[in-house]
C-alpha cells in the first residue's frame, strides 16, 4: 500500500492511495494518511483509482478523515474509485457525508 502526495498548495491537498485497503494495507499508511489530513487546513482530494480493495478497516480510516476535515469545515473528495470500491463506499454511506467524483475537474470544483 502506498501513499503519494500529488499536490500540496495553500488551496488543496491532493493525495493518491494505491494497493488494497485491507487490514494490513490500511495499517501501512493509516498514520501518515490521517496525519496529512489532520494537518490540512484546506480541502483534500484522494485519488482512489489504484485502490484495488476496500475493507472495513479502510472504511474506518476514511470516516476518521471525513470527521477530521468536517471539524475544520473542509471537504474530502474521493476521486475515481474502481467499481468494487465505489460499491463499498456507497454501501457504507460514505456518499452521504463526502463527495465521490469520477472526474478530476469536477473533484477540484467540488472540493472548494
Amino acid at each position: 500500500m502506498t501513499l503519494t502526495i500529488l499536490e500540496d498548495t495553500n488551496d488543496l491537498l491532493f493525495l493518491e492511495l494505491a494497493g488494497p485497503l485491507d487490514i494490513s494495507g490500511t495499517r501501512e499508511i493509516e498514520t501518515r494518511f490521517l496525519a496529512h489530513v489532520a494537518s490540512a487546513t484546506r480541502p483534500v482530494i484522494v485519488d482512489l483509482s489504484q485502490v484495488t480493495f476496500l475493507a472495513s478497516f479502510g472504511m474506518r480510516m476514511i470516516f476518521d478523515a471525513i470527521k477530521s476535515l468536517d471539524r475544520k469545515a473542509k471537504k474530502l473528495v474521493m476521486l475515481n474509485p474502481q467499481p468494487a470500491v465505489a460499491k463499498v463506499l456507497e454501501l457504507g454511506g460514505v456518499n452521504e457525508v463526502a463527495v465521490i467524483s469520477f472526474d478530476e475537474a469536477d473533484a477540484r470544483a467540488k472540493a472548494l
Partner: protein
Amino acid sequence: MSDLDDLEKIGAAARQLLEMIETRLTNEHFKTPEKYGATSETSASLRDERLRTAVRFAASASELKPGVAGRVLVVDDQPENRDVLVRHLERQGHRSAQAENGRQAIEMLRQEAFDLVLLDVAMPEMDGYTVLGQVKADPTLRHLPVIMISALDEIETVVHCIQAGAEDFLAKPFNPTLLRARIGASLEKKSFRDQEQAYLHRIEETQKRLEEELSEASRYVVSTLPPPMREPFEISWAYDPSTELGGDSFGYHWIDDSHFAIYLLDVCGHGVGAALLSVAAINVIRSGSLPRTDFLDPAQVLSGLNDAFQMENHNNMFFTIWYGVYDLVARSIRHASGGHPAALLLKSSPDGIDVVEHLRCPGMLVGAMPAISYKSETTSVPENSRLFVFCDGAYEIARPDHTRLDFDDEFIPFLVRNGRNPNVPQDVLGWVRSVHGSDVLTDDFSFIAMDFPR
C-alpha cells in the same frame, strides 16, 4: 550471609592495617640479627615488603565479591580431594554435598536440586564420562552445568567430556583462582538460564491462561447465538469466526404475536474488542433496550444503535447491520441496512425459475457519524421463499492466486443453484472454503437461511 559479613570485616581490618604500615612503620622497626646472612637494612626491607604484600592480598581478597552462590555436588572417589574442594566452596559462600562415586552422584542428582556438579573424570564403578552422559541424556538434568576434574595427563578424556556437554574443566592440583573463576562463571550462566526458564514458564502460563479465557469468551459468544428454529419458520445458520473471537453476531426473536425480527451485525475487525462490541449490541437489540425506539421500525432501531454506539466511545469501532421485521399477517419484511450487504430473497418467478431479490435499503455504517437518519423499506414475501442474511465475509473471499470471488457472477448464481438445499448455510461455508483454498477464512463468516411458511 554471615560468611560474607566476616569476609568484609577482615578486609576492612586489613586495609586499616595496610594504612598503618605505610604511614607508621619504617625499616628501623625491623632489627634482624645478621646471623641470617643479611644486613639488618635489607632484611628489614624484605620483611616490610612481605608484610605489605600479605596484607594487600588479604585486603584485595575481601574485595572480590562472591558471585552467585549455589549448591554444588562434589563427585570424587578421593576423600582428600573432596575435602579440599568442599573447603574452597564453603569459603566462597556456596553450599555443597559429596558423592564418592558416579552411581551415588546420579542418585543424588535425581533426588536433590543442585546448581553445579564438580565431577572427577577417573573413578571406579562409574567414571565421570559415563555420569556426564547420563546427566546430559536426562531432560530434567541436562541443563545442569558440569565441570570436569582431571589430572593433567587426562586431557584427552576432558576433550571428550567437553564435546559431550561438560561446561568446563579443572586440573588437579586445584588453583584457587581458577577454581573460583570457573565455578563463578558456571553458576552465573546457570542463574541466567534459570531466569530464562522462569520467564519462559511465566509466558507459557500466561499464554495458557489467555487461551482458556479466549475459549471461554468464545463459548459465551456462541451461546448468545439463537438455536436453529423449526416452527413456524425453519431457520438454519453457519457461523465461523476467523479467530478465536469473531466480530459477527446475529439473532432472531418474536417482537409480538405477528412480528418476527431477524438481524445480523458485523463489527469492523475481529478479536476480543470486536466480539465485546458485537455481543453488547446484539444484547441491546434482543432485550429491546434502546430508549424511545419502536423495534417494529428498522430505521428507528438503526438510528438508536447509531446514537448508542458512536465509535469515539467504543474503541474507534463501528459495525454494519441488516435488520428486518417479518409481518406474519401482511407476509412482508420491513428492513433497513447500516452499511451492510443486502439480504437476498430467493423466490420462484412466474415461469418457475428461482431468482433472487436484493433487500437493499442502504444506510450509513452504525457508529461512524453522529445523528444519522436511516430509512426502511418493505418487501413482499411470496410463498415458498427463502431469505438469506449474511455478512461480507461470506462472499469477500480471496483465492490462492489473490483474485477474488465475484459477488454478481459467482456468489449469486451459487445461491440460485443451491439455495433450496436443506442446509444451504453449511453448503456456502464449504464452498467458500474451497474457493479460498483453506478451511481458515480471513474474515468472520455468518450466514442465516430462513424459510417462510406456505
